[in-house]
C-alpha cells in the first residue's frame, strides 16, 4: 500500500463530507412541508443523519488540512468553488417525488461505497464509514420503498417519478468518475475506484426501477464538475448564501 498524500486525502474527505452536507441541507429544506407527517419525520431524520456524518467527515478533513480549522469553518466559510460535492446533491428539491428520487439515487451509491470505506486502510475513514453505513442502509431501504410506491402508484405519481428520474439521471454518472485523487485512494487502500462500483449500482437501481415500473433513461451523458469544483450548478450559490448567512454576517462568534 502506498502512503497516502494528504492533499489527495483532503480532497477525498471534502468530496465525501460535502456530499452529505449539501444533501442534508437540501433535505432539511422540507421541514414542516412534507405530504404526510410521517414523511416530515423521515426527512428530518435523514437530514439529521447526513449532517451528523458531515461533522465527522469534515472534522477529519479539517485535521488532515492541518490549518487549525474546524468542520464548521469548512462548511460555513468556503465559497461555492471550494465545494466538492457531486452536482446531483445540490439540485433543487422539486416536488416530493424528485426529492425522494434524488435521495434514492444517492443512497444507492452511498450504500455501496460506505461498506468499502468501512473495510479500508485508514482507521478514521473506517470508523466514520462503519457508523454511517448503518444509517444509510436504512435510508436506502426507505427511499427505495418510496420510489417503488410512487412509481407503481397512480398514473400521476408514475408520471412524476419518471420525470424525476429523467431529470436526475444525467447527474448519476459523476458519482463514478475517477481521477488522480481516486487513484491515490485506491493506491493507499482507503477507497475503491468509483468506476468499479458502477455495475453493482446499475443492478441495484435496475431492480428498484423495475419494481417501480420506471424506465432508466438511455444514454451515457453525465453532467460533472462538482467533485472537482470546476463547475457547480447555479443552484449551489443560493443554497450557500442561505446556509452561511450567520457565519458570514457575524464572523468570529460562538453559537
Amino acid at each position, binding site marked *: 500500500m502506498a502512503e497516502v498524500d494528504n492533499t489527495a486525502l483532503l480532497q477525498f474527505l471534502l468530496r465525501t463530507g460535502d456530499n452529505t*452536507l449539501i444533501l442534508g*441541507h437540501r433535505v*432539511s*429544506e422540507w*421541514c*414542516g*412541508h*412534507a*405530504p*404526510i*407527517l*410521517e*414523511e*416530515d*419525520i423521515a426527512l*428530518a*431524520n435523514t*437530514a*439529521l443523519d447526513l*449532517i*451528523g456524518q*458531515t*461533522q465527522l467527515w*469534515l472534522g477529519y478533513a479539517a485535521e488532515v488540512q492541518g490549518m487549525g480549522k474546524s*468542520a*464548521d469553518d469548512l*462548511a*460555513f466559510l468556503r465559497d461555492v468553488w471550494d465545494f466538492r460535492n457531486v452536482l446531483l446533491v445540490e439540485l433543487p428539491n422539486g*416536488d*416530493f*417525488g424528485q426529492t425522494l428520487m434524488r435521495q434514492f439515487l444517492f443512497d444507492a451509491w452511498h450504500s455501496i461505497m460506505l461498506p468499502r470505506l468501512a473495510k479500508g486502510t485508514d482507521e478514521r475513514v473506517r470508523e466514520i464509514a462503519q457508523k454511517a453505513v448503518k444509517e444509510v442502509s436504512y435510508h436506502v431501504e426507505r427511499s427505495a420503498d*418510496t420510489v*417503488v*410506491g*410512487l412509481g*407503481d*402508484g*397512480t398514473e*400521476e*405519481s*408514475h408520471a*412524476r417519478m419518471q420525470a424525476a428520474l429523467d431529470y436526475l439521471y444525467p447527474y448519476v454518472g459523476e458519482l463514478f468518475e475517477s481521477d488522480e485523487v481516486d487513484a491515490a485512494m485506491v493506491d493507499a487502500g482507503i477507497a475503491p475506484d468509483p468506476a468499479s462500483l458502477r455495475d453493482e449500482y446499475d443492478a441495484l437501481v435496475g431492480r428498484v426501477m423495475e419494481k417501480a415500473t420506471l424506465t432508466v433513461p438511455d444514454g451515457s451523458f453525465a453532467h460533472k464538475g462538482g467533485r472537482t469544483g470546476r463547475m457547480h450548478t447555479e443552484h449551489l450559490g443560493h443554497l450557500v448564501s*442561505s*446556509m452561511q*448567512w*450567520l*457565519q458570514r454576517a*457575524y464572523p*468570529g*462568534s*460562538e*453559537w
Partner: protein
Amino acid sequence: MTDQEREFQDKIDNDIKIEPRDWMPEDYRKTLIRQIGQHAHSEVVGQLPEGNWITRAPTLERKAILLAKVQDEAGHGLYLYSAAETLGVTRDDLVERLHEGRMKYSSIFNYPTLNWADIGAVGWLVDGAAIINQVALQRTSYGPYSRAMVRICKEESFHARQGYHAIMKMAFGTPAQKKMAQDALNRLWFPSLMMFGPSDKDSVHSEQSMAWKIKVKTNDELRQQFVDQTVPQIEYLGLDLPDPGITWNEEREHYDFTDPDWNEFFDVLKGNGPCNTDRMRDRKAAWDDGQWVRDGLLAHARKKAAARVAAE
C-alpha cells in the same frame, strides 16, 4: 346526573383513568378532541417557525440539534393525533378542520422567528411554557392523553434545556448576539404569557374542564408559575426584563407582572396574527401539493394487498 355520569365522575375524582372503551359524556369527548387535536396541530404548525431557521443554522451542531427537535415535534404530533383517534375521529378529519379554520393551534406559532436567538428563545420560553401546561396534564383524566403527555414531557424538557443553552450562548456572546437575545426575549415574552390562555375569569371552558380533570390547574396559576420560574433565568442571562412591571411581591411570594394585551391575543385568534396567513398557507400547500403522494402510496399499497390476496 345519571348513574353513568355519577360513575364516570367518581372514577375521575378517584384518579382512575378514563380509557377509550369506557363510557364518557359526549361533551367530555368533544372537549378532549378539541384540546388534543389543537395540541397536535400546534406540534405540526410549530415546525414552521423553527424550520424557518434550519437552513440558516450557524453551525453543524446547531443544525443537528434543531433538526432533532423539529423531528421530535412531528413525533409529538403523531402521538397526539393517535390519542385523539382513540376518541373516534380520524387524523385526516382533524387536519381538514384545521385547514378550514374550524380548529386552532397555539397562537404562539403565529409569531415570527426573526433572528437566530429566537430559536433559543422558542425552546426556553415557548417550550418552557408548554411544559408547565403539560406537566400538569400528565395527571389528566383521559388515559391515552395522559400517557402521551408523560412521553412528550420528557422530550420537551430536553428541548427547553437545549433552548436555554442556546440563548445562553447568545446572551453571553458578542454584543450583537446579546442584542439578538434581548430582541427575542422582548418579542416573545408577552406571547409566551398568552400561551396559558385568558385570565381565569374570562376563560370559557375552564370550570367544567377542571371538574373533568382535562385541565388540572387554572390558566392564571400556570402563568404565575411560568413567570416565577423565568424571571430569575432572565436575570442570570444578564438580559433586561421585557416588562417594567415585573417586581417581586414579598407578600404574595410571587412576581407581579403586566398582563399581556388581550386584545392582541383575540386579534391573533381571529386570524390577524403576524403569521396566521403564512402558516396556514404553508400547511395547506404542503397538504395539497402532497395529495398525489398520498394517493400514489395508497394505490400502491392496494395493488400489493390485491396481489397478496390473489396469491393466496
